[in-house]
């Protein structure tokens, strides 16, 4: 069963075509890697799927809802973690969890229980009452992710979730992704770290607003007879004409 469907999804800003008629599908329970160089159009595509931006043409479906007409319905079924840290810095750790859980309509009691569980799992018990802005970056990202999946969405969208942190923190982060996936949450993740691409079930590579290839990492390496995803990526990226921004 497909939980994300895109057909000729296009987004133009003036003369600039950020996303150029992309079509793909993501299966339920998959970890789908959405790769591409900076400026390839990943974030724009993802924002359209999340209902944050309307497509210029083409259509898409997320969790069975149309992204243009039913975007508010989609929002109840997804979680989202943006590239820029976007929890409330002036709220405490537990207050951020409580706020977003509350917005998604989780009952008060359940919020309390699950917050305690979560903080314990993350080892954040001591930081429960810390203002979020004073957490180190790696912790902020873990918290953002946890908030994004706290209400058990069907799908979670992660935009460059591991930008700027060291490899060991990135590994820990991917453990969390796997854990969420094991709970049945479909994961749609953009990244430009190619070692992370290896962790995905399937990946697509976007170049200049178009999806160039879409397959499992092992198949891609076979087709391009490359030793790593990194190599595959570099071959693709060479085709790019757009400037990196």
């Amino acid at each position, binding site marked *: 069963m497909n939980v994300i469907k895109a057909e000729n999804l296009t987004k133009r800003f003036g003369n600039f075509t950020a996303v150029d008629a992309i079509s793909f599908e993501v299966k339920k329970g998959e970890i789908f890697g959405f790769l591409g160089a900076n400026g390839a159009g990943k974030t724009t595509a993802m*924002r359209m799927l*999340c*209902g*944050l*931006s*309307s497509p210029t043409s083409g259509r898409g479906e997320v969790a069975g809802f149309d992204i243009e007409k039913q*975007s*508010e*319905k989609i*929002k*109840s079924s*997804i979680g*989202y973690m*943006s590239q*820029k*840290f*976007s*929890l*409330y*810095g*002036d*709220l405490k750790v537990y*207050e951020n969890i*409580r*706020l*977003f859980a*509350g*917005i*998604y*309509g989780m009952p008060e009691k359940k919020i309390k229980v699950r917050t305690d569980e979560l903080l314990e799992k993350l080892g954040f018990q001591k930081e429960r009452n810390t*203002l979020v802005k004073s957490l180190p970056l790696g912790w902020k990202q873990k918290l953002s992710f946890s908030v994004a999946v706290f209400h058990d969405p069907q799908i979670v969208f992660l935009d460059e979730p591991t930008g700027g942190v060291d490899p060991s923190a990135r590994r820990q982060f991917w453990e969390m992704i796997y854990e969420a996936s094991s709970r049945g949450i479909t994961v749609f993740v953009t990244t430009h770290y190619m070692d992370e691409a290896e962790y995905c079930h399937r990946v697509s590579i976007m170049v200049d607003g178009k999806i160039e290839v879409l397959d499992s990492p092992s198949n891609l390496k076979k087709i391009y007879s490359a030793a790593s995803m990194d190599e595959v990526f570099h071959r693709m990226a060479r085709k790019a004409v757009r400037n990196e921004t």
Partner: protein
Amino acid sequence: MIKYLIEKEFKQIFRNRFLPRLILGFPCITLLLMPWAANFEVKNINISIVDNDHSSCSRRLADKIVSSGYFKLIDIAENYAAALENIELDSSDVILEIPDNFESDLTVTDKGASLMISSNAVNGTKGALSASYLAGIIRDFSAELRRENPSPQSAFIPVINIIPQYRFNPNLDYKIFMVPALMVMLLTMLCGFLPALNIVGEKEAGTMEQINVTPVKKHIFILAKLIPYWVIGFFILTLGFGIAFFVYSLMPAGSFLTIYVFSSIYVLIVSGFGLVISNYSKTMQQGMFVMYFFILILILISGMFTPVNSMPWWAKIITVLNPLKYFIEVMRSVYLMGSGFTDLFIQFIALCVFAVIFNVWAVLSYSKKS
């Protein structure tokens, strides 16, 4: 769901290092200091007298002017040019020129004398008032002379006795005029500027996107933003009532309830307007400038400091669209005239219409998509 959002707004306001101090301190300082500033009462007018007559009569007039209490004699100038210099240096406000045959014109030849009053009218009102006070004293002076020297003609002098009566504020206390006006200004500024910076602040911080990707309803989100300012408005108003009573012994002639009801509608208007501006702004700076622009205009053409009646027709039309005008009318009527709901029906309807328009607009202009 709204509970969590409101909780969050309050926490953000109170956790800010600056906002709580501003919300408490700004109204206090304003209400303690500013009511004393407004005083158009024209007294202690500085006068230069050019006495070309040097007669007992002209000296007597000068004495009378000084003893009236309105005027302070700065100097007896040699000539008009010297007196004008005083005006230029702002050391004097009015010049009275007494011609050289003043006394003889008045008493000997009996053909009547003439004087010249020159008043600094850079501030037109003050200039005209000073001149008319002086003319009044001169009229009294001639009446005095007539009483002292009765003549057949002065047996019949018609005297019209003009009795002023100042309704609602018999002692012409400017503080009664200012305190309600300042309360309106405070509500407008605090409940207008803060929301104008709010949503756009979240846009700049990036938290807006995290909210937009949740299923939160637009009107719920806007309502959660409004309610804290509504509460702040009530707080400011109550603080204002307290200061008005304890510092200036002012109590509204009408009921507190009327003011609270009208204020609660008014705060919704300004805050809603602030949110509309915030929705359309890309940066906080933009939001601030746009709001500043509107608030200044709204305050100045509300009739708060200058009467609406004196405005040209096009400005009067603008005032019809100015919610502040209605609210200031309400505040003054309730505070001073003791008006109740029935007297303020038009204002009530007008304010409700504004409240609905701005808040619906705030919901509609908040777009969860970019």
